[in-house]
Every structure is written in C-alpha cells, then in structure tokens.
C-alpha cells in the first residue's frame, strides 16, 4: 500500500517536472518573421521594404559563423542588386567583442547586435549560425541551421533564387 502510494507520488512528480520543461517550437517555413523594428536591435537597420532578406544569426565566439562570412559577403555581392538584403544579427553579449569582430572581418553587408537576445528568442534559433530567408511578404521561406561550407551556400542561393522568383519586385 505504502509503496503504491510512493510510486504514484513519484510518477506524478516526474510528469510534472517533464511537463514544466520549456517547449521549443522553432520558427517554421511560412510563418511571419518577427518584426526587426520591435526587436530593439543595436545598430542601423537597412531598408528591407520590398526586399528578400537573409537574416544571419552569428556571434564572434562561433567558429562556423566566422567561416560563413566570406560566403555571405559573396552572396551580398551577387544578390544585392537583385533585391536581396543581407542582415547579420550578432548575438554577442559584449559590445567590444562585436566591434572587434567587425573591425577584423569588415563584412560588406549590414550588421546589428541583438544585445538582449530578443530576436534570437523569438526565432528560437536552433544553432549558431542560423540563416533565415525571408520573402518580400515578410514570411519565412527557408531556414539553414549551421554552416556546412559550399553545401550551405548552394542551398541558400537556391532559396534566394526561389524567393526572388516567387514575388518579383514591383
């Protein structure tokens, strides 16, 4: 009798603990991308009206993020004039780390700092880096988790081409 009561109590406790774990529902394709203007980002936001936007979440302490920067620079050169804006969103806690990284790598595209991690929290960034392709309608077209060299770059190019073709600039 006693052991039965104990078992029930333990099971209830375990269930309660598991149920109270935070749910991790990431942003899905087709969902509206959170407002950049309301995310309290540090830095100047580029004009993204009528643009396909590639939002890249990175940090100075993240090695694959560093590796992805030359590719993002090339994407900026190839797609900038075609209606694609690349926005690097830094998740650095320290402003000086962010500034030092920008000084060293001098990315040709716009970057801002998500100091409060508000945007990363809203997007529920699954890994660092994560690149999100947002269509002209503000909806997510594709999400790329991590950077795997040419394979990722090729996939991003395909997603950008598709997003540009879906909704031509008016």
């Amino acid at each position: 009798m006693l052991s039965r009561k104990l078992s029930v109590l333990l099971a209830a406790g375990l269930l309660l603990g598991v149920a109270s774990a935070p749910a991790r529902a990431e942003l899905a394709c087709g969902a509206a991308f959170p407002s950049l203007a309301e995310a309290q980002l540090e830095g100047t936001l580029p004009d993204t009206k009528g643009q396909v936007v590639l939002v890249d979440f990175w940090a100075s302490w993240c090695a694959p993020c560093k590796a992805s920067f030359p590719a993002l620079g090339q994407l900026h050169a190839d797609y900038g004039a075609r209606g694609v804006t690349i926005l690097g969103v830094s998740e650095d806690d320290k402003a000086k780390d962010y500034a030092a990284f920008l000084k060293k790598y001098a990315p040709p595209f716009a970057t801002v700092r998500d100091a409060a991690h508000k945007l990363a929290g809203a997007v529920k960034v699954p890994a660092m880096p994560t690149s999100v392709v947002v269509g002209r309608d503000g909806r997510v077209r594709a999400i790329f988790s991590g950077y795997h060299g040419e394979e990722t770059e090729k996939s991003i190019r395909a997603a950008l081409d598709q997003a540009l073709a879906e909704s031509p600039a008016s």
Partner: protein
Amino acid sequence: MKNSLPFRIVLAAGAVATAMLATGCTTAHVQPWERATLADYTMRPDRDPLQNAMTEHIYFSREASSGGRGVGGSGCGCN
C-alpha cells in the same frame, strides 16, 4: 499497520525531492546563443600544452603505445 503523520510527511518530502532531482535538468536548457562561455578557449580540455604532454606520456606508458595518437599507422611499429 498505519504509518504515523511525521513519517508520511517525511516520505512525501522525500518523494518530491527525488522527483525534483530527477527532473531538474529538464528545465536548464542552454540556448545556442548563450554558449559564449562554453565556446571560450579556457573551456577546452587541451588548452594547456604541458598538461597535454603529461597526459599523453602517462597514456602511452600505460598502454605501451608510443605514437599511438595523432600518428599515421596502426601502432604495429612497422612504419
């Protein structure tokens, strides 16, 4: 046999404590953007070359496999 009230309270407290311990880690999820400290150089287990050399020395002595880590070949001593 009926258990006394204090015994029941202790039992219930023990059960709750066990449940809390068993599920405590489920709520401590470090988000990908919060891993700056984990990615720091000082978190690397191989950050100290002297410590590494000592560890390798002990490992090779114990396993009798000098050059068995990070060197080409199968450890047969034939190459």
